[in-house]
């Protein structure tokens, strides 16, 4: 646009800096957008130059990456026992959430959940024994993410736990996740009491076979469609899964009734699902994982394919940097606490559930979930602002997942680490909060902005691949 073309037009101004200039322009009737600007994260200038020099290649790779993510078609195709289906799973292996970590660095909830899992597996009689075995080196610990799996909170998957099998029909890959136990004192929040183990056993012996038969009967349940509907019904499928759980219930209930051999068991299973608003979380998570996995290993792609926390470290993986984890300390979330608990009781952020944000859901879609705006400051305006901010660090807008309030605009999808650094704006994540000590369980729920450190490291690691 030449200078003389500008003279003929209405002036439309982007104001960066003194907001009074924007106010003055608005006052004189000039359409103005005021940028709430802050400086970029400080990174090495040679890295910035490398990225600038390769900007076309990066843009093309990022487009390719997000095209794969958007094409993903996650479908629930069955259930099985972990050892039977999870790739690389071993009898003495326990999977956990987040990046790799050794026993000595694990947080309270993860330790608690591992000890509980050892009792559940019959490998230990009590907590003392479980602790001894866990620290003995005989048990192999590995991140869920390195075994095509995801787990909420502590994210513990032990060999005989039942898991959902999700297939990405567009690319043929699979993802796995355990079944959700409910809220409060549960294994994934680090509780390991007798009631916890009893519930897990019931889930293995009653819930699992009942659901397995029902899903077999149905053949497939389209999760992409179900998530899209849930977003229209007020879920963001991370901290609110009420609509998703209801939709799943509607889909599965007739099949359960048709395939059960014990009506009381069927009723208990349906009651269990009905009574747990977060049942769907363990489907929205592996659905996101199944969609993101085919987008891994694309050269020049700066798109984030994993964000995961183990309660000690926050880990990030990029499409263009292979299997490398970039980590930094996990933060304690701002949360609303259950009666009797405060931030001092809280463990740092934990769980693989940030895979939903990585896939354009959860905190990225919070504008779709007005019922939980109390988590983000109490007003719908705050929730919308968070989603709007996430558009600024993502490459694409989702084709299926939409925000009704924003005129059905697609959710922000495909986090670009370059944008995160450039705008000094980290992903916004919904989360539950575990007590920092093993054995206690959930103490609250809330939100947090991801720490910058793992993104800085990921940015540097990515820039190195451009040399």
């Amino acid at each position, binding site marked *: 646009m030449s200078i003389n073309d500008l003279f003929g037009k209405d002036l439309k101004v982007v104001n*960066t800096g003194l907001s009074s200039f924007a106010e*003055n322009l608005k006052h004189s009737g000039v359409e103005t957008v005021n*940028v709430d600007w802050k400086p970029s994260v400080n990174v090495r200038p040679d890295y910035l130059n490398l990225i600038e020099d390769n900007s076309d290649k990066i843009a093309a790779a990022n487009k390719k990456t997000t095209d794969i993510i958007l094409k993903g078609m996650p479908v629930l195709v069955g259930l099985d026992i972990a050892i039977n289906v999870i790739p690389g799973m071993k009898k003495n292996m326990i999977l956990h959430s987040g990046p790799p970590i050794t026993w000595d660095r694990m947080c309270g909830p993860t330790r608690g959940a591992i000890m509980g899992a050892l009792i559940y597996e019959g490998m230990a009689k009590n907590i003392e024994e479980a602790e001894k075995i866990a620290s003995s080196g005989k048990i192999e610990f590995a991140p869920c993410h390195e075994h095509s799996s995801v787990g909420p909170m502590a994210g513990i998957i032990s060999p005989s736990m039942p898991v959902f099998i999700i297939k990405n029909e567009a690319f043929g890959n699979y993802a796995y996740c355990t079944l959700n136990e409910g809220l409060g004192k549960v294994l994934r929040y680090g509780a390991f009491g007798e009631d916890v183990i009893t519930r897990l056993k019931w889930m293995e012996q009653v819930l699992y076979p009942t659901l397995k038969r029902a899903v077999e009967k149905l053949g497939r349940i389209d999760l992409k469609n179900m998530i899209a509907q849930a977003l229209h019904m007020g879920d963001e499928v991370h901290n609110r899964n009420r609509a998703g759980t209801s939709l799943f219930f509607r889909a599965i209930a007739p099949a359960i009734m048709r395939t059960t051999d014990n009506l009381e068991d069927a009723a208990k299973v349906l009651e269990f699902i009905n009574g747990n608003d977060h049942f769907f979380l363990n489907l929205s998570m592996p659905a996101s994982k199944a969609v993101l996995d085919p987008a891994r290993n694309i050269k020049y792609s700066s798109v984030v394919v994993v964000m995961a926390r183990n309660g000690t470290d926050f880990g990030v993986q990029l499409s263009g940097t292979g299997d490398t984890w970039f980590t930094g300390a996990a933060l304690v979330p701002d949360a609303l606490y259950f*009666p009797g608990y405060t931030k001092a009781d809280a463990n740092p952020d934990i769980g693989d559930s940030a895979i939903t944000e990585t896939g354009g859901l959860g905190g990225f879609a919070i504008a779709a979930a007005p019922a939980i705006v109390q988590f983000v400051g109490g*007003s719908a305006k705050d929730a919308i602002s968070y989603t709007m901010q996430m558009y600024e660090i993502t490459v694409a807008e989702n084709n299926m997942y939409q925000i009704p309030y924003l005129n059905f605009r697609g959710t922000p999808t495909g986090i670009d680490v370059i944008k995160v650094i450039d*705008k000094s704006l980290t992903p916004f994540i919904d989360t539950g909060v575990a007590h920092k000590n093993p054995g206690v369980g959930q103490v609250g729920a809330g939100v947090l902005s991801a720490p910058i450190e793992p993104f800085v490291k990921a940015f540097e690691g990515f820039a190195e691949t451009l040399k």
Partner: protein
Amino acid sequence: MSIIKGKILSGEYLDSITLLVVTEEMNKTKGVIESSVVMGSRENKAILQNSGLMLPEFKDTTDNDLLVCIKAETEEVSTDILDNIQTIFKKFRNSDENTEDYSPKSFDGAIKLMPEANLSLISIAGKYATREAMKALKSGLHVMIFSDNVSIEDELKLKQYGASKGLLVMGPDCGTAIINGAPLAFANVVNRDNIGIVAASGTGLQEISCIISNEGAGISQAIGTGGRDVKKEIGGIMFLQALQALNEDKETEVIVLVSKPPHEDVLKKIAFEIKKIKKPVVAIFIGASAEVIKASGAIPASTLEETALIAAALSKGKKIEDIKPELEKAEVAIKTLASNLLKNKKNMQKYLRGLFSGGTLCDETQLILKEHIGYVYSNTPLNKDFKLMDAWKSKENSVVDMGDDEFTVGRPHPMIDFSLRNKKIVEEASDPEVAVILLDVVLGYGSNLNPASELVPAITKAKEISPEITIICSITGTESDPQNRADVNRRLENAGAIVMQTNASASKLAAYIIK
């Protein structure tokens, strides 16, 4: 000592998160040890039991009952909260859900919101400004950089790139512009008409555009370039681009150029350009001789006021000669006023002190004074022999640019923050040798919204200290400015100041008094 009290609200419902928020709110109340607000489900009652807040009366409640339970230091604390519980609920139910415009966090966020944006106004710290400006240029936006402290290398890079794309790069250090009638940064609300301005001088542009507007003429476009544009290193890239654009602009019939004297190479280029232009071009290169300007092919003017009056006359189809009698008449009036004011001066009162917020106005005043009383001392002197050793200490006849860096480090510009200048006004009035204090008052967007209220106390104080002192104020502004020129004028006069309509006439009045 503590007491637990509770209440059952049947049929009341709040979602679980609102309940947590309400609980947090109650816990903040003085005297409350612990509290809980929950729906009366079995699970919740178990939680109450565990936390020691379960009351016997809660035993038979159901999911449809809301339970409030408070453990407090005294019964009064609990009773007070329980009696007002509905008010607390209401606070969270009717929370303000007014969805104001989203403020994006970055340039590309802004572009997503307003894809048809065509100008980026940048006023962040200089070290970040280049990068933001380049983003805007690459997206095809014109740019105005208000920020200073941008390196001259970066300025050159931005302007070369902008010129190659046919885009305006106003600044760095461009304080004002009026594009398509929109006042950008520090700009006045002026009439829209047929005079186009190119300025490498911020307050120069403001003064000229205001006088033009006050004369009943108007501005088509006023393009700032930043002061360094006409230096050798930048070579006038944007000054020339803007000049060409105004030449091609159908709305513009008269062109005004204002700047400090450009580098000779740049002046040659400007002259070359002017020769191609059929529209009248009026120019003031503050400090350059009329011959230099004439050689460039432009109509020379000696003051900002004269520049504006010539342009206004030409824009209405009048001849330059037509305004001569008017100027001469004004000159006589100033002389008369000066001799009246001289009558009540004490013998020892012989010096002038100028305290300026506008840099170009300070320069113009020095030029006018030079004609009448010779060089004066300044922190930004015309002649380096007259450099004030200490900008804070005036000497004989002095004019100080208080917008210069040494006064603005760590504080707002004197057009916004009057406190430093007010202090100086009182200080100068306390000097028995001072006869005249000369002030500029710059109105418009960006400037202090209530300059009269800022200045009147200082002027009153100065008059108390030295009743014979003359305080002359010039006003740069229009009736349409947010501050309202007439109102400012009246209040300054009521305080005892002599208000002149232009900086040139104020400077001349000062000069005649001191002479």
